[in-house]
Structures are given as structure tokens and as C-alpha cells.
């Protein structure tokens, strides 16, 4: 065969459309340049079309029925267990498009349920009242209660210090303690709001007034205000309040060995 006709073995595949893109392009390019192959492909296509249009006679119904019956009897008998095994296999390996879609839907539903169980918000109402709008407040825990308790103990010490400070005596007010309490006041206020404890809120309100004065004012200047501060403590009964709060808020944590 001449080299110009080496493509003719691809003509049949070209008609069926099962050549690779590269092969198809090569055939098309060759046909543009080879009139002999153009004639040949036309003749091939007539034969190809005739074969495509071929109609086979259908088998006679009775013969087909007899064939089906005989062919099923040509090997051993099927048992119930064998059929059951196959049925189980068919059910487990059935994968139609609808079945896959249903499978996907099931997975999504299960995923949603699991996600809901894990990430669903707690049924307890979320306290949204914070120091600023939209603030997220985590639920109050035992640690927070301890925090409040020790804050109250420290506050009591500071209040007693202030109360016992005389006009002529040296100032023994622990300004560092006051500064520490001031830092913690913000969080204590949040917890008080979450607990909705009006007594504690009221107490914190007074402390928010006292603590900046005590911690930020120089000792020499504080002497001038000390009487005012003492008067506030007395009028607001802060020492009694802190004692009541200490007893009501929580018993102190028991330390190991005590």
C-alpha cells in the first residue's frame, strides 16, 4: 500500500467517531490532500451506511421461549440460599443515579442532625446584657463564683483598711490592692449582671466610685478625701454588704488538707 493510503484503516473509526482528537485531525488533514482517499472514503461510507441500516430478523416467539427455557436448564439447579445470597449482594451493590442521590440526601440529613447535636445552642437563655450592646457573655461557672468571692474578701480588707485609717496615723491603705480590685471590677460587674444579683450590682457600683479615688490619688492628696470616702462606706453600709454578699454568694473553696 502506498504511504498516501496508510490512513485508510482509520476511516471506519472516523465514521464511528471513536478516534482520538489527534487521529481525527490527521485523517482530516490527509483527506484534504489526497483525492484518492477522498474517493475511497466515500465508497467506504456507502458500505458503512448499508451496514448501519441492516435489520436482523427477530427470532420467532415460540423458538425464543423454548430457547430461554432450555438455556436455563442447561446448568445446575439454583437453590434458595444461592438466590438469597445474590439478592443481598444486589441490594448492597445497587447504585443507580436515584439511589446515589438518595444516599447523598441521607448523608446530608445525618450530617445536619449530628451538627445540630454538637453545635446547637444551649436551651438555657443567653444573657445578652453586658457592658456594651451585643456583647457575648459566657455562662457563669463555679470559677466565676470563686472569682467574685475572692474579690469580696479583698474588698473587705481594703474597706477595713480605709475605715481604720486615722487622721494622724500613717496611711496604711494598700493602693496596689485597690488597683488590682479596680482591674477586676469590670468582670465582676459582668458576672453580677449575669447573676442578676442586685445587691452585688449595687456594691460594685459603690466600688466603681471608690476604687479609682483610692488607687489613682496620691497618699498626700487622699488625706483630704478620706473622710468623704469613710462617709460613703458608712452610709452605704459597705462593710455589712460585703459580709452578707460573702456569705450568700458561695462558700469558699475548700483547700486540700483543710
Amino acid at each position, binding site marked *: 500500500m502506498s504511504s498516501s493510503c496508510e490512513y485508510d484503516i482509520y476511516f471506519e473509526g472516523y465514521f464511528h467517531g471513536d478516534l482520538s482528537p489527534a487521529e481525527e485531525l490527521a485523517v482530516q488533514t490527509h483527506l484534504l490532500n489526497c483525492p484518492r482517499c477522498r474517493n475511497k472514503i466515500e465508497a467506504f461510507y456507502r*458500505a458503512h451506511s448499508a451496514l448501519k441500516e441492516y435489520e436482523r430478523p427477530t427470532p420467532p416467539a415460540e*423458538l425464543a421461549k423454548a430457547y430461554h427455557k432450555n438455556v436455563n436448564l442447561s*446448568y445446575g439447579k439454583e437453590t434458595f440460599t444461592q438466590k438469597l445470597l*445474590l439478592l443481598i449482594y444486589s441490594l448492597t451493590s445497587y447504585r443507580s443515579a436515584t439511589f446515589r442521590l438518595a444516599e447523598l440526601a441521607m448523608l446530608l440529613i445525618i450530617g445536619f442532625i449530628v451538627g445540630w447535636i454538637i453545635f446547637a445552642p444551649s436551651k438555657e437563655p443567653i444573657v445578652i446584657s453586658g457592658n456594651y450592646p451585643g456583647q457575648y457573655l459566657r455562662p457563669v461557672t463555679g470559677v466565676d463564683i470563686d472569682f467574685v468571692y475572692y474579690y469580696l474578701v479583698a474588698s473587705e480588707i481594703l474597706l477595713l483598711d480605709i475605715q481604720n485609717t486615722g487622721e494622724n496615723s500613717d496611711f496604711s491603705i494598700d493602693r496596689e490592692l485597690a488597683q488590682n480590685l479596680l482591674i477586676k471590677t469590670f468582670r465582676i460587674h459582668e458576672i453580677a449582671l449575669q447573676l442578676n444579683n442586685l445587691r452585688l450590682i449595687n456594691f460594685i457600683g459603690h466600688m466603681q466610685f471608690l476604687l479609682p479615688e483610692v488607687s489613682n490619688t496620691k497618699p498626700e492628696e487622699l488625706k483630704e478625701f478620706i473622710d468623704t470616702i469613710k462617709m460613703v462606706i458608712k452610709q452605704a453600709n459597705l462593710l455589712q454588704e460585703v459580709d452578707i454578699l460573702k456569705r450568700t454568694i458561695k462558700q469558699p473553696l475548700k483547700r486540700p488538707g483543710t
Partner: protein
Amino acid sequence: MDPDRRFVLFTKSGNNAAFARLVRKYRDPVLLLVFDYLDDYKLAGNVAQKVFVKAFRHIREYDEKIGFSSWLYQIAVNDALEIRKSGGPDQKVPRVERTDTASRQAKNLPGRLPSNSSRDLKLLLNNLSESQLSTVILRYFHNKSIHEIAEILNCPENTVRIHLKDSLQTLSADLKNMKDHQ
């Protein structure tokens, strides 16, 4: 895993019901394939039945390098060609009377008649060599790919392409001659 292979594994382990599934799937294609070679449904039915018996007996020899359908078609093609070679049945397309469907059924004749052009074409196919005939039957009447035909006929894919090309060449020439005579 390919369901055919799973059924073959079941059959190898002694599950006849699995082979029944394979038979139900392939009994009609095998019958038609054998008919395409022999042009006689009664004979084709007997040969196809033997094909399945042979497949069942030799299922353990099937090594799964090729698809089960290709293996089964291989047996069917070989058996049909053997009958053709032995010259038993008439190789020509049987003459079919043009009668109504009911009387055709009563006489056990084909249910649907092929057109004249189809019958002429079938006669022309007898001019092809065995290999060419097999490639044409598998390609055009059973929609097999070049790769599957190569598996069934146990030859390289390019050989299949050459057989197809030669078949088309012969058929186109024969069709032209037939037209000229008419």
C-alpha cells in the same frame, strides 16, 4: 467491582444462581450473535445453549484478563464458525415468505422481516473471509469497540482495523456491482 466478575466469582464458588444471572443477561445477545453467523434461529438456539454449557463447565479456566462478555463471545464466535466451516446448515439467508404476523408465528418464522436491502447485504457478507465477517458482525450488529473485538478475536487492535477496512472495501465494491446490475 464489575458485577459480571462478582457473579463469575460466585459461580466459581458453586453458586448456580449467579450463573443464572449471567445467562439471563447474555442469552439474547449470544443467540443473535450465533444467528448472525448461521442465519438459522433454530440452529442458533442449540449452539447458543451449548455455548452456555461450555462456559459453565470451563468457568474456572476464565482468568479475568478480559471481560466476561468478551470471553463468552469468544466461545460463541468459535462455536458458530466451527458450525459454519463444517458446512452443516445452509449459509445463505433463509428465504422468508411475506405473510402476516399471525401466520408467521404459526409457521415459526421470524417475527419481523428484514428489508430487501438487509437481505441483500447479508448475502454480500458471505463473500467476506471469516475474520472480516467476525469483525463486521461484532462491530456493526453488536456495537462492540475495536478493543473489545480485539479481545474476542484474540488479535491486535490494528489487525481488527485492517479487517474492517478490507470488509468495507469489499462490501462497497460488491454494493456498486449489485447496483450496476440492477
